[in-house]
């Protein structure tokens, strides 16, 4: 089995899976019907991308592997998503901030991944770019609305950014798998998109009258499976059916 490629696909896909799962929690509970529909839309896009990645990963793994066994039947330490995307929906500002801080990264990543020598990854990236361009626009617009809305919304938006900022740096941590695949022209060295990321984010925050946090202390661990305490609960929900009723078709 191409272990590097398999692990790299998980690194890409788990972010989509977990971000999608978090947005899915909000369905029916958003601040307006329009935002509900939009958040569900983004969640749907992310799960669609997850399925494409996992179907590919299942092919590589062979045996009985399926998109669902990969999505639902791993242990917590085997999930490779960044800590950022597993952070809970504390309020709408947190949801929007988490999404935006991920979306900007996601788009920059896909814009490079579309030129991957791996045809499947390239195809998934090309299809996803259209979707993620919309995600960035949606979350970025909301950052502006909330940042430059009322005093209360400004405070809440700033608090969310301050709270989540510590998870941004992990996005650019280069794993061994990614490094090896980048050398073969298949994967992306994410450290190369770091500057563009912080430039984009800074510009938008300025427009939204928000401060870019100055803290230089960051958290990491997600990519090597060391997650925050929130992750176990998320997985308990997500895996419930597959764990309680093993080996069944739904």
């Amino acid at each position, binding site marked *: 089995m191409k272990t590097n490629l398999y692990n790299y696909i998980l690194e890409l896909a788990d972010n989509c899976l977990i971000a999608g799962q978090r947005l899915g929690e909000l369905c029916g509970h958003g*601040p307006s019907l329009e935002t509900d529909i939009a958040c569900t839309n983004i969640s749907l896009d992310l799960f669609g991308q997850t399925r494409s990645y996992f179907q590919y990963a299942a092919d590589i793994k062979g045996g009985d592997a399926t998109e669902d066994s990969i999505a639902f039947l791993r242990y917590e330490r085997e999930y490779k998503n960044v800590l950022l995307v597993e952070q809970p929906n504390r309020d709408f500002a947190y949801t929007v901030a988490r999404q935006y801080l991920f979306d900007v990264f996601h788009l920059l990543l896909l814009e490079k991944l579309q030129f991957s020598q791996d045809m499947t990854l390239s195809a998934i990236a090309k299809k996803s770019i259209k979707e993620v361009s919309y995600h960035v626009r949606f979350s970025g617009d909301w950052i502006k609305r909330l940042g430059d809305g009322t005093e209360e919304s400004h405070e809440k938006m700033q608090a969310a950014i301050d709270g989540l900022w510590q998870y941004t740096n992990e996005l650019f941590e280069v794993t061994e798998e990614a490094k090896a695949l980048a050398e073969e022209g298949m994967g992306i060295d994410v450290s190369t998109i770091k500057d563009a990321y912080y430039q984009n984010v800074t510009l938008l925050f300025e427009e939204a009258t928000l401060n870019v946090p100055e803290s230089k202390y960051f958290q990491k661990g997600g990519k090597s499976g060391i997650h925050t305490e929130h992750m176990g609960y998320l997985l308990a929900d997500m895996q419930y059916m597959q764990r309680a009723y093993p080996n069944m078709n739904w």
Partner: protein
Amino acid sequence: MSEAQLKNTGAERSRSLEEIFEQRIVNDEKIEPKDWMPEKYRKTHIRQISQHAHSEIVGMLPEGNWITRAPSLRRKVALLAKVQDEAGHGLYLYSACETLGVSRDELYDQLHSGKAKYSSIFNYPTITWADMGAIGWLVDGAAIINQVPLCNTSYGPYARAMIRVCKEESFHQRQGFEIMMSLCNGTEVQKQMAQDALNRWWWPSLMMLGPTDDVSVHTAQSMKWKLKRKTNDELRQQFIDQTVPQADILGLTVPDPDLKWNEETGHYDFGEIDWEEFWQVVKGHGPCNKERMNDRVGAWERGTWVRDAAMAHAEKQQIKKENQAKAV
């Protein structure tokens, strides 16, 4: 002209307007928002369309309850899409309602204060995955029977919204049946889960078609305005006749010992519906009435600062634009 004469002319005019209006309905013409309509027609439509919109929005909750726990990625995506469709239906139904001169905020107020009703079925809990199948199959099935005739109803915006709603609902119904089919073709545990869901959702689904004709207060007027084409009892019979053979295909037993095919009438006979339970739920004392309202009101209240911010930002942008225009 004397005051009495003036009054008379006014009354005559509105009588003739009403006659023209009634004739248009008889002729199957659509009534559009700017057309003259009797106040009672307007009110009845606001009541029914908003009730329908509220049902879509509250209906998102019992199914939304399973999005995070859906058993496969395929099912998760389908469920998300389904709940999103319901939000979409809510959106166009609220818009259709707004054409009658009421705002969405007012309608929300009526829902949140308990003044407006929504379909009682959503006050039942979704406790297993099979409930996602049963809701699609039975609840959406009953909804379609209620709603298909509305595609030809007299009020244009409602009729047009219903065409799209019905298309999506029939897709949901097939999707629900397919969930049930997978369960019934699965393990013993899955079959039991499916049977249990049918047991719990069967009677509430029959109640969804509304009280019996002899106690239904709005039927006569609604039939006249084509808001209704068949009576509640006729619709209920149609639902039972259509659904029992589907339960047979699934290999499930409908939980009614009195259910029996009647050769003479060409319909199924069925047992007594527990109307006391129906009225208990309608009056706000069902298993989840309070949870559903708490969720809706909670989401709305938690969202206040977000909506306020969006308005404030839009105003700031507008001022900026005006200032820029002035500067030029």
